């Protein structure tokens, strides 16, 4: 649960929110960049220790992300599954043994967690501002994505109505799996049609407000403070520590030496 009156698309963190929301005080662009540095930095390593140190270092930030464990688990589930399946596949078919498999799995998680934290601790609007103003992401697609995000709760509502409507019209799978699949895709298609329609209306409304007629000005400034620079600097430091630990304990395996 976030503090304040935020819902899915806004995050209100009061000034005195304290350490629990410490991570949300950084510029989203800084968080994303730091996550990117960690991810790229981990690519060469294939051992569990290097990835493990980064994973531990990032996991230590979880209590300061302002996110409850349930949300983090729900959002992290795909990555956990990915890590788990990486482990399994490498164990069964890999030529690196258990250690190599564990290394691959830990690396997946260590690459995913920083990005996930950056996302859940940022307000979507601030994130888009940060991407556009700090990372020079093209503005049109960024605004488009932000506007489309508003439609997600509408679509959830839409899906519910479509489901009820099938029952009202007498359509049900009645235990027949083929019919169940057909019904599901029918509903999906209805949702698609509706979302395209809503999207078109929204695009028209944006056009009517002079979107894309010329250079825009920016009402909000994406602020970059000293702490953001420090966060950026902390990422390579964490990587150095990780490689230092695995090197000194003799466990470091690099991707190319591993396969050699």
């Amino acid at each position, binding site marked *: 649960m976030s503090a304040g009156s935020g819902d899915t698309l806004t995050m209100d963190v009061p000034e005195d929110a304290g350490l629990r929301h410490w991570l949300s005080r950084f510029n989203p662009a800084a968080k994303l960049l730091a996550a990117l540095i960690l991810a790229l930095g981990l690519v060469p390593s294939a051992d569990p220790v290097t990835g493990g140190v980064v994973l531990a270092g990032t996991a230590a930030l979880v209590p300061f992300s302002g996110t409850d464990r349930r949300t983090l688990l729900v959002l992290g589930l795909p990555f956990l599954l990915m890590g788990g399946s990486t482990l399994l596949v490498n164990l069964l078919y890999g030529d690196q043994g258990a250690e190599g498999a564990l290394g691959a799995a830990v690396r997946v998680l260590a690459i995913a967690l920083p990005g996930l934290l950056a996302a859940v601790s940022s307000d979507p609007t601030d994130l888009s501002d940060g991407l556009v103003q700090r990372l020079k992401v093209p503005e049109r697609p960024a605004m488009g994505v932000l506007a489309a995000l508003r439609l997600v709760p509408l679509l959830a509502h839409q899906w519910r109505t479509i489901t009820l409507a099938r029952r009202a019209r007498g359509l049900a799978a009645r235990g027949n799996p083929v019919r169940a699949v057909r019904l599901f895709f029918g509903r999906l298609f209805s949702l698609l049609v509706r979302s395209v329609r809503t999207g078109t209306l929204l695009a028209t409304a944006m056009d009517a407000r002079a979107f894309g007629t010329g*250079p825009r000005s920016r009402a909000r400034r994406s602020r970059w403070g000293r702490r953001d620079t420090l966060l950026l600097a902390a990422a390579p430091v964490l990587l150095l520590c990780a490689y230092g630990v695995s090197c000194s304990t003799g466990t470091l395996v690099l991707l190319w030496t591993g396969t050699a």
Partner: protein
Amino acid sequence: MADVRLSGWGWRHAGRSEYALRGVDLRIDAGERVLLLGASGAGKSTLLHALAGLTGPDGAISGEQEGTLLVEGRPADRRRGTVGLVSQDPDSQLVMARAGDDVAFGPENLGVDPDRIWPRVARALNAVGFPYDHRRSTGALSGGEKQRLVVAGAMAMRPRLLLLDEPTANLDPEGAALVRGVLQRLSAETEATLVLVEHRVAEVVDLVDRVVVLEPGGGVVADGPPARIFDRHGAELAERGVWVPGREPEPSVAPAPGGAPVLAAEGVSARTPGGLGMRGDGRRTVLEDVHLEARSGTATALVGANGSGKSTLLTLLAGLDRPHRGAVVPRGPLAEADRRPLYRWPARRLARNVGTVFQHAEDQFVTASVREELALGPRVSGLPPARVGAGVDELLQRLRLEHLADVHPYTLSGGEKRRLSVATALGSGPANAPCVLALDEPTFGQDTRTWRELVDLLAALRAGGSAVLMATHDPLLQHRFTDVRVRVGGAGVHVDEGRTT
């Protein structure tokens, strides 16, 4: 203030063979307030979109134009800050997640100096009486509040031409009153030229000093001050579907036979559906221990503000969803079909005995053509194909949809969609009408013609012994065709017996 000149103007939407409008000659001087009227399909929205510069080569709407359309002496392309547009549906007009950011969106697009944007935002929010902080989430607003925000977003662009396309059509009466109040105040303050489209003339007639009547596929057929237009053309306009004050439709409704209860809600509680599981969207109780009966041959109206739970109650009474607690159980003739609570009925049995009409007709449609749509009900009730075909032909004729039998239901006009959606809820046809018919805002946004047809049809069903349940805001529907009024609010219901006046 901007002036508008149209001469011999016409527009044909891409992929259509007929012109939406043709041969329009119209001159609107700077600062005038004009109401555009016409039957549905007369191209009023198209004209507004063209004035907003949304048609044409770079615009969002493609098609073919003829003649000339000039705003301030130049073709209406989206010239910066000239035009503001407010459309019907607030949900598809808000762009940003926070109220203030959304109002700032227009000025940003115009390249207004950032230091000047926030004072503009504050002034616009103030002008529409926005009751919250500018950091308020737009998702947390009611329909009327959202639409006020949309108006603020248009005003913050300081338009010289303000276009309003049925701005209150999608709102409940409270929300509509809020927005109307804002428009009253704005029209007194702003000097912008105002062009307005609205079916419900009474709502806006004091905002305008001129009425222009358009003909479908044609041009201007009447033009002048409101009093004169309604005096001379009122009857004709009402006949064509426009809601003219004092000329509301008066269908001759067959009396309600009344009858025994067919449906009863017993201690029903309901909660809002959970969110997406993000940040713990809370589930709210909307109905608590509701007891209610629906009688055959009786029209029951569920009334109450948006969010009061009347749509939820209707969904439960129609057996589409499972209540959080309690049950909706069949009584009398309906219990002969199945004695279990309605949510446990198989979908086919439910569709045969309890019909549901959704607020948005499109939600109702599950096939790719009008004919299939009408055949589905009889087919799932197990009628032989020959009888299905004959029944469908008869329905098509009754609905005046024969010429559209093979088109996709989504491509029908608003009134046609409504007629079809009601027909699809009648199970295997009006001859075997369902025991209960539940309708969510059936008259919403309809012109007088569809309104009258709908009430005629519902009255016939009621006379035949069906229980008609309607969630509705429409005061005229409550006035002309309601036997029992159920006020929903504060998680409970209050029943007023007897016809409301």
